[in-house]
């Protein structure tokens, strides 16, 4: 085989490999959603985050508007500090927006749902969301229900 043909086939091979990698990145994984860091980060304190994980979705009316970027424990407040990045397109969140941790489906992953408030001021990078609702812990719920039942 001539050198030229070898070079062409090797070129095809490398292109094919890179195309496969590209397909894995775009079609198979969630790379399409990252699109750099064009967003702003806000924080929220929760008494209990349940099973929330970093990179869990943040939704608004069911539509994903961002992702959880960091979860740390605040030793002074005895609370979990959740930071999440909201896409820059959604920069109209009122300052009294409420953040709640819900579960997708019965056994699904947990996510943060935002509910807008009525203030005119909007959230900016670094702001803290004041109204939060912790994750529902099943055991706690059952315990409360048992207390109610025995109370009656």
């Amino acid at each position, binding site marked *: 085989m001539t*050198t030229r043909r070898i070079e062409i*086939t090797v070129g*095809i*091979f*490398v292109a094919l490999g890179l195309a496969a990698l590209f397909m*894995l*990145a775009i079609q198979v*994984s*969630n790379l399409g959603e990252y699109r750099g860091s064009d967003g702003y980060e806000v924080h929220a304190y929760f008494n209990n985050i349940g099973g929330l994980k970093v990179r869990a979705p943040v939704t608004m009316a069911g539509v994903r508007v961002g992702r959880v970027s960091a979860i740390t424990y605040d030793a002074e407040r005895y609370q979990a500090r959740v930071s999440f990045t909201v896409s820059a397109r959604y920069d109209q969140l009122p300052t009294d927006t409420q953040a709640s941790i819900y579960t997708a489906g019965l056994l699904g992953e947990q996510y943060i749902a935002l509910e807008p408030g009525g203030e005119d001021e909007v959230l900016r990078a670094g702001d803290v969301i004041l109204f939060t609702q912790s994750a529902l812990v099943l055991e706690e719920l059952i315990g409360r229900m048992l207390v109610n039942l025995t109370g009656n």
Partner: protein
Amino acid sequence: MGPFQRLGHAALGVLERLGRGHLFLFRTLLAMGTLVRRPGLLVRELYSVGVLSLLIIAVSGLFVGMVLGYQGYITLVDFGAAEALGTVVALSLVRELGPVVTALLFAGRAGSALTAEIGLMKATEQLSSMEMMAVDPYKRVIAPRFLAGVISLPLLAAIFSAVGVAGGYFIGVGVLGVDAGAYWSQMQASVDFREDVMSGVIKSLVFGVVAAWIAVFEGYDATPTSEGVSRATTRTVVHTALAILALDFILTGLMFGDI
């Protein structure tokens, strides 16, 4: 020789080969510079190592993907979660099966060929005649083959995974009737680019270095007889398979252990 002497002799032999192997790798890396000036050498090896392995990798990827489609469906449908088939197929391929199976096939298809080629060059005294003509066999023979293996394996692993995902789609959506939209959307929702795809790429890169290193070293270190070359070829396949499975365990522990 008593039994203890024999044991010590064997242990020293293993250590000697280990040391020789690492010195060999070091000299190969030093010889890599010539490839910048003579990329033609690399292209020729990429052809015989990468392009010629393409068919077996693509066909195996297709079949592994289709088997995953069946097996995943059978397991998931009991839990009413057949839509998660895309996730199962993609994660198994991208994280584990893509890099590992590709590396094992690569050892059988390309690694053994590399060993046999270099071993025969040594047995027919081509390597010594090169040295006689002041041509460094490390630069002319070893380095291009090594680098070709290191470049080829990640590309082959990516092709394997991509073809496998398509094979899983063919069985899951085409034959078993999983919803096509759910197949892709569930996959995209749970496969993370940095955590899953990139760690697969890093794995296959490490496997590429190990597989190519073992193949060229066994060839260069072969006893220069026909029996020696055949033994070296067998050793390449066995040692590469063991090294890759053990390394895969370590790498998986490092990458996904901190959950």
